[in-house]
């Protein structure tokens, strides 16, 4: 179902058209993903596997729960913009065909700075290196730039110069238009496939293969939402909190009618409030820890609207046939084990998991950057200097790919990485060094909260101090 009216957002819904899914007409609008249009139509399960039906989990191209066939080509429905007349179907027993050889089709592209990922970190890096006069290219695998800021409708904390008080999508709009203003070229639908030791990155953009040869690289590939193991977690209707945000806040598609949210960190609390704004009932927020993980103010916003937060509770199973119908939760003991006899059953068609994120740093690992496992930062992250340079000279990391934090720190680490790239290519210009110091100062300030203590501990182990 589509959201007709929203208190914060306006959905453009231009150029209505249809495509066919398994022979059935599906209505869609320009700029909508196939996955969103299918969800709006009520199609939940997209993939049939031997043990059940799978649906979208991430909505940003990671989980492959949305794999479909489009005009004979296998693709992720969440990354595929709808076009009139597409023929979309479930994939059968898919056997990939050998790609036809297309000699001479690769194009070479030499750039000063290559930025991978167009979220707050990548755009911020691109803006500051673009402002320094460098030729900057951003590569984004989605069909719209902005990363996950695009689906944030709440106002951000912070000070004026860090966009405090603006809503996430408004920050994304500003970053994108500023980047374009300073001459940054943003390539969308252009996934970076990998790095080749001959010194180029392979990028697939539309029909062409690009071999990008950059003089400096910023990897700002973001993060992936975590899955939680419990019976039924694959059922369509069980999805990451971010996936529901994509549906309701980006496309104006109602993710469900009655929701249970797992995890009372900031993401879980914020998404619960956004669900209410989208007209979805939130039956409960379930948190395994004895305390709420996110900021109190975010919890207070949903508590005063009557949403219960069940601390010391966990989800024990999800039930349903072709899609989610019920969620069973239970209290946990000191060892975090469910206590028999404490089960509560919720009739829910939506179960959102907000149990943390994992840095998406595979490109850096593939390039050979020295990586380290950091529980505090959410997973494998690259060692880096305080100027965000990895163990590979001229290759920088920024945002959640360097460790899970939030949008403000992503913007700031992006600025630091962007200035570092500029310093490398333009020399240690005083203005660049000063601006980088200023970004570092703001970063330290932003991390001086009780919630950042863990991150700061993690950073101490992954930041390699270098004499500059």
């Amino acid at each position: 179902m589509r959201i007709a009216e929203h208190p914060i957002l306006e959905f453009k819904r231009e150029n209505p058209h249809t495509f066919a899914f398994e022979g059935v007409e599906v209505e869609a609008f320009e700029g909508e993903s196939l996955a969103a249009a299918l969800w709006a139509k009520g199609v939940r399960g997209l993939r049939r596997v031997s043990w059940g039906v799978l649906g979208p989990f991430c909505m940003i191209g990671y989980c492959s729960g949305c794999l479909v066939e489009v005009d004979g080509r296998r693709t992720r429905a969440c990354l595929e913009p709808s076009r009139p007349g597409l023929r979309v179907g479930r994939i059968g027993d898919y056997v990939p065909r050998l790609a036809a050889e297309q000699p001479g089709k690769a194009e070479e592209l030499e750039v000063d700075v290559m930025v991978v990922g167009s979220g707050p970190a990548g755009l911020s890096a691109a803006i500051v290196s673009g402002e320094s006069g460098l030729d900057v290219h951003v590569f984004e695998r989605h069909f719209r730039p902005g990363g996950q800021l695009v689906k944030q409708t709440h106002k951000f904390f912070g000070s004026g110069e860090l966009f405090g008080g603006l809503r996430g999508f408004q920050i994304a709009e500003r970053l994108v238009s500023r980047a374009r203003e300073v001459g940054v070229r943003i390539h969308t639908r252009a996934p970076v496939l990998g790095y080749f030791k001959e010194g180029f990155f392979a990028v697939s953009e539309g029909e062409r293969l690009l071999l990008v040869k950059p003089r400096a690289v910023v990897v700002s590939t973001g993060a992936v939402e975590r899955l939680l193991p419990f019976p039924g977690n694959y059922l369509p209707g069980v999805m990451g909190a971010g996936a529901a945000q994509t549906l309701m806040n980006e496309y104006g598609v109602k993710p469900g009618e009655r929701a249970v949210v797992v995890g009372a960190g900031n993401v879980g609390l914020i998404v619960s409030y956004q669900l209410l704004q989208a007209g979805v009932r939130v039956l409960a927020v379930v948190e395994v820890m004895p305390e709420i993980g996110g900021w109190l103010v975010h919890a207070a916003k949903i508590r005063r609207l009557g949403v219960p937060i069940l601390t010391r509770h966990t989800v024990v199973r999800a039930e349903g046939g072709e899609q989610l119908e019920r969620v069973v939760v239970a209290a946990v003991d000191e060892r975090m084990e469910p206590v028999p006899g404490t089960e509560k059953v919720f009739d829910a068609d939506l179960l959102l998991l907000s149990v943390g994120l994992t840095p998406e740093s595979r490109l850096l690992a593939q390039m050979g950057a020295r990586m380290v496992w950091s529980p505090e930062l959410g997973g494998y992250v690259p060692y880096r200097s305080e100027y965000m340079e990895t163990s590979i000279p001229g290759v920088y990391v920024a945002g959640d790919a360097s460790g899970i934090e939030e949008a403000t720190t992503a913007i700031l680490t992006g600025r630091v990485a962007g200035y570092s790239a500029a310093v490398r290519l333009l020399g240690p210009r005083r203005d660049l060094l000063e601006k980088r110091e200023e970004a570092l100062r703001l970063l330290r300030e932003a991390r001086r909260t009780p919630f950042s203590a863990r991150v700061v501990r993690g950073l101490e182990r992954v930041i390699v101090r270098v004499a500059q």
Partner: protein
Amino acid sequence: MWRSRGYVEVEELKQMGLVPPPERMERGPVAVTECVEEIPCNVCEAACRLGAVSVEGLRGRPRVDWDRCTGCGVCVGVCPGQAMFVVSLAGGEGRVTLPYEFLPKLAPGMRVKLLSRRGEELGVGEVERVFEVNKTQVVTVRVPGELVMEVRAVWPL
């Protein structure tokens, strides 16, 4: 403890010195901050043209100078945490000003459910005044005098 409950009790706010005395509320509207954690944010301070809100550095709890504050409600609309409210007992009548971001949009004269910090219904009140700050409606609602520190949300009837 508020971190397991999800909201602060009035008693806790009082202990932290965040609740203006009744005499001040009787003199007219005044802002109350319920932002008790050290959030790296100073949007309220930056928005107050009277300099009545101060945050130590970019973080720390905001404090309201009850003598300077006129209860205009701008901070209610800008606060990203929706933790600013305006209360008044002027003329012996209770009024609370709070943020609202739902549908239908509210307008003066509409009657709404009054909700506590815990989401309990505390009765019905009438909307008196509404203005908007970046899509957040700042709503002043009439409430019984004894409830000015209790009502923290409204919901359409």
